[in-house]
């Protein structure tokens, strides 16, 4: 085993991992209600003197007004994803739910049974094994990491990684507590709701699919972002040291990116699209500038930004942003996409994949 920092799944070796996984389809569900940053900041209890839109670049986010919860968001996203696939839900071998929030029937968080089991039942994945995976905002990509590993070995052929985040309630709670720009609940005001789903399946010969997937946890920083059930308010509260997270992520990412690029012998400039976790437009631009300087090379396009209109939708951000790019017709067949996870833990992960024509066609694009 070569010494690298990441726990990494590199290109197939004929004996241990003879197959590859490809993204067969992706789906999402966004609540219809838009909450502008102006409206949210007008609802704070205290005069905060914070220009949140200027600080974060977030104009608005989608929020459930009681019409959706984590479960319904996840189910709707899973159905959207499955409707773009040729195979029925009954062909799924596994369903992994990766959301932080597991609210059903309003703000009741379900611990047992799993949300994955409920989603599988709702979409008709009767054969699928199910479990939940929790890894903060890196949840879905961690789920992809696990499912990719199983598909590569042939343990399973098809699986769904799904998440539903009804997390905007944390923003409402924070609006009662934030006093000024130093508040540790500031990041809660950036949150938006969304459901997302990724269908992975064994790729036919010659299809590249997911080429590398690597993850690590820099646990010295495990306490930089904590969310827990609020005592006397519905839902939860989240306390974040955003600057410390940004600093740790910026310093660690270049080395990890180098490990991933080295493992497949490509340069940063061979990557077409970089989709990072969507926290704030400013943080993404600043972070990318640092990484580009450290690596001494840049991807073909600017980092994808969807946080300006969806806010931070927790574990679903990468999928939500990827669908934006696909639907706008910007991603071309054969493009290489790097999904970069950054989450409380501190979780850092990189998944490198090549988008094929079939995936784009499932969203109505014929190139």
């Amino acid at each position, binding site marked *: 085993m070569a010494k690298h920092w990441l726990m990494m*799944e590199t290109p197939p070796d004929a004996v241990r991992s003879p197959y590859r996984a490809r993204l067969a389809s992706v789906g999402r569900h966004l609540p219809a209600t838009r909450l502008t940053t102006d409206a949210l900041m007008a609802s704070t209890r205290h005069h905060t003197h914070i220009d949140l839109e200027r600080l974060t670049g977030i104009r608005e986010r989608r929020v459930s007004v009681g019409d959706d919860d984590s479960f319904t968001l996840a189910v709707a996203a899973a159905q959207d994803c499955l409707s773009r696939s040729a195979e029925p839900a009954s062909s799924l071998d596994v369903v992994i739910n990766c959301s932080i929030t597991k609210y059903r029937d*309003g703000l009741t968080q379900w*611990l047992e049974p799993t949300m994955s089991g409920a989603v599988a039942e709702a979409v008709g994945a009767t054969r699928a094994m199910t479990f939940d995976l929790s890894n903060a905002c890196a949840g879905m990509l961690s789920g992809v990491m696990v499912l990719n590993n199983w598909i590569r070995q042939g*343990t399973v052929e098809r699986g769904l990684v799904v998440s539903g985040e009804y997390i905007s309630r944390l923003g409402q709670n924070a609006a009662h507590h934030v006093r000024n720009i130093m508040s540790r609940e500031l990041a809660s005001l950036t949150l938006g709701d969304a459901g997302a789903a990724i269908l992975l399946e064994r790729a036919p010969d010659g299809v590249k699919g997911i080429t590398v997937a690597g993850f690590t946890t820099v*646990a010295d920083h*495990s306490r930089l972002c904590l969310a827990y059930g609020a005592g006397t308010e519905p839902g939860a509260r989240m306390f974040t040291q955003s600057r410390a997270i940004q600093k740790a992520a910026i310093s660690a990412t270049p080395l990890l990116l180098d490990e991933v690029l080295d493992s497949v012998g490509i340069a940063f400039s061979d990557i077409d699209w970089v989709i990072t976790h969507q926290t704030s437009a400013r943080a993404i631009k600043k972070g990318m500038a640092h990484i580009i300087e450290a690596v001494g090379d840049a991807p073909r396009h600017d980092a994808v930004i969807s946080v300006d209109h969806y806010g931070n939708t927790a574990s679903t951000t990468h999928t939500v942003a990827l669908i934006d790019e696909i639907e706008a017709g910007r991603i071309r067949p054969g493009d290489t996409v790097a999904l970069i996870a950054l989450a409380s*833990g501190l979780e850092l992960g990189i998944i490198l994949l090549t988008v094929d024509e079939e995936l784009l066609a499932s969203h109505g694009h014929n190139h």
Partner: protein
Amino acid sequence: MGTIIDHATVSQAGWRSRHSALRIAVAAARACLDEAGCPPNDLDLLVNAGLYRDGNLGEPALASMIQEDVGANPEDPHAGAHGTFSFDVANGVCGPLTALQVADGFLRSGSIRRALVVASDADPARGMTRDFPFAGAGGALLCSWTEDATGLGPICWANFPDGGESFRSTVGYHDGRNRLRITSSELMDETFAVAAAKVAFDCLDRDSTDLADVDLVVAAPARAGYAAGLASGLGVAEERLVVARDERIHTAALIAALHDATTAGRLRPGSTVLLLAAGAGVTAGAALYRVPGRDTP
């Protein structure tokens, strides 16, 4: 060729840790690494399957805090060394079996050499629940890979959806604060036993193994009603079935059963063990485990 369990430990809540699943998990993890002589930095993967935790923490994964507290490569990434990846899975009492399956995949692909599976529960906080039904307890399993014919076989799963009727736990807002609510049906253990027996036979069928060739059934949860139902459903004598000594242990029940069977000298090298778990969902999982090492005559 398969994943082997190098060591299993259990830990009980003390007075100071009675509300801290984190402290209980860290104690179990430390003891497991210590007793196995494995330095924390050798861990490549840490998967936590515990559920009832300090203040119902939603993020980060409790696993990342466990990783920091046991000191498994917590520092910033640097060249010429390897790090540790940590996250949580949730699958009720079946959680450790799920975590084993995750670890098995990465061991099999050669991405990792050593994995630690941890699970613990504790009453999340005073005032949150009136009667927390589970023991403040946890466990840890240290896993690695063997190229010989022993170790963990494929894991079989089955779901029998009941909408949480047999067992359900939620945290919801009632009377001005968030409260943990746990409900179960009178038929819970009977239902779980039926599900576990069904998936056990699926697993044996797939492996073309006869139940008569299984030396020991190691099962979770640990409640007597479930164990008795399972023994009769499988048609094995209760002596061939091991559950954890502490009936109230929850997500760590399978780990504790493995630990208790080991300390009682019942996991004999060369023997075939059937691992079985069933819990809320209803979800049940089963796998055959061939205990590594040679039996000494």
